């Protein structure tokens, strides 16, 4: 069994540590702050399946959802996993028509997504504003508590023999004979055969330590938190613009970035989000907060009665093709990437953990990871 170091204590890193430790592997997880002190602790808990790109991305998401059912029972603590169902809200006829085709594609793949008109949408979600044109509905969209999930994964890994080491910053990586040999931190060195880079928005910095070029850049998502109230939302909601903005940044600039809404088990609503390239700046802005509030209260007017109790922002790891980077680097040997999930980290954490663990321990994966290859951006560069 190889010695493995996982760099990053967010949902992805802890998920990998859990799946590896449960198979008896020798794992050490290194986290520079505290568990979930990066993006995993500054996001909402949406597990939105219906918005994933059809193809292997959607396949991963569906597989991940299945794993959630077991994790809910198996992980220590309460991860607050709930299959509340999800709706994409349309405010204009144009959005409705654009989504109609998208939904037909999804239905052709066997997804149980339906298109609802205004009346049907209001029946499902009574607090929706009457001006909306309709929505989609997918019963398998879900939500979870990302911090509880991260801690749950870590505690399970620890129970299965993993070392979870926080407040430890990776300073460098030693390579010997073109293979990783140890990780250097401010708390000493850790000898290892395999290194998994699960450092999220900071993954490029870690990869650079071994000369691997990774195009992950941070994309800020601001979130507004309301006071806890009795149940208002029955499902998770996103606006059609929210999906469009992810894949077409230019569209986000002119038409706005759309919104997402989730009511947590405690009763607070998490309202998001922005998609901003502002480096590693995690501040909230009055423009971001105002826009989120304006757009969410337009869709659910009842929100106007609530107090905002705090705001925060997370740096989501963006990649140019919106797909994560999963797999072994060609050089050095033993360097594995598992980052770049931008906005899909929570949904894909379980399957990422399972497949990366599988890849390291058996050399194969149940779902092929070719589309997520580490060198795909280099190859694209070379062919243009």
């Amino acid at each position, binding site marked *: 069994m190889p010695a493995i170091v996982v760099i990053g204590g967010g949902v992805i890193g802890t998920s990998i540590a859990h799946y590896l430790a449960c198979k008896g592997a020798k794992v050490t997880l290194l986290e520079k702050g505290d568990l979930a002190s990066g993006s995993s602790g500054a996001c909402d808990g949406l597990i939105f399946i219906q918005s994933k790109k059809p193809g292997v991305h959607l396949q991963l998401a569906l597989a991940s959802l299945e794993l959630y059912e077991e994790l809910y029972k198996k992980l220590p603590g309460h991860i607050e996993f709930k299959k509340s169902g999800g709706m994409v809200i349309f405010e204009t006829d144009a959005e409705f028509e654009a989504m109609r085709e998208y939904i037909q594609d999804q239905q052709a793949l066997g997804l149980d997504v339906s298109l609802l008109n205004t009346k049907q949408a209001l029946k499902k979600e009574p607090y929706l504003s009457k001006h909306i044109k309709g929505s989609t509905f997918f019963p398998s969209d879900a939500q979870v508590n990302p911090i509880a999930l991260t801690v749950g994964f870590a505690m399970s890994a620890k129970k299965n023999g993993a070392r979870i080491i926080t407040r430890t910053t990776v300073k460098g990586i030693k390579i010997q004979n073109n293979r990783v040999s140890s990780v250097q931190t401010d708390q000493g060195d850790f000898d290892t055969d395999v290194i998994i880079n699960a450092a999220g928005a900071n993954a490029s910095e870690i990869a650079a330590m071994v000369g691997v070029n990774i195009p992950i850049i941070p994309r800020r998502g601001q979130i507004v938190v309301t*006071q*806890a*109230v*009795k*149940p*208002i939302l029955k499902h998770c909601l996103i606006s059609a613009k929210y999906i469009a903005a992810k894949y077409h940044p230019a569209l986000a600039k002119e038409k706005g970035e759309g919104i997402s809404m989730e009511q947590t088990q405690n*009763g607070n609503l998490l309202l998001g989000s922005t998609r901003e390239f502002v480096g590693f700046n995690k501040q909230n802005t009055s423009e971001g907060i105002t826009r989120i509030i304006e757009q969410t209260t337009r869709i659910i007017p*009842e929100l106007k*009665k*609530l*107090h905002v109790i705090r705001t925060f922002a997370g740096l989501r790891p963006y990649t140019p093709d919106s797909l994560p980077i999963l797999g072994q680097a060609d050089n050095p040997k033993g360097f594995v990437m598992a980052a770049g999930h931008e906005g899909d980290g929570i949904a894909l954490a379980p399957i990422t953990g399972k497949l990366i663990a599988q890849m390291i321990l058996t050399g194969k994966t149940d779902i092929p990871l070719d589309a997520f290859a580490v060198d795909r951006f280099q190859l694209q560069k070379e062919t243009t």
Partner: protein
Amino acid sequence: MSDLRIPFIKRGKKINVYINDRKTLAYEGETVHAVLLASGYRVLRKTEKMNQLRGIFCGMGICYECLVSINDKPYQRACMRQVERNMKIDIHDILGP
């Protein structure tokens, strides 16, 4: 209806406010929570999960227990607002199931 105020204190001008639509005596300069206490209202709401009774606790704006609706705006801290002529104060559960 009660008036539990300590007598012989110099108060502001007498005004009327409405507590759950009931005309109630108040004095300018009093806080909403003082008027509620003086008029005999001690329970202001019930808790979310266990339906326990709540009223005034800290009296100084940091505990958020004394929440009432003021002029149809819900979740206002009664201890942080002074009464105004004809103010509408409602004690009830907002956004019920």
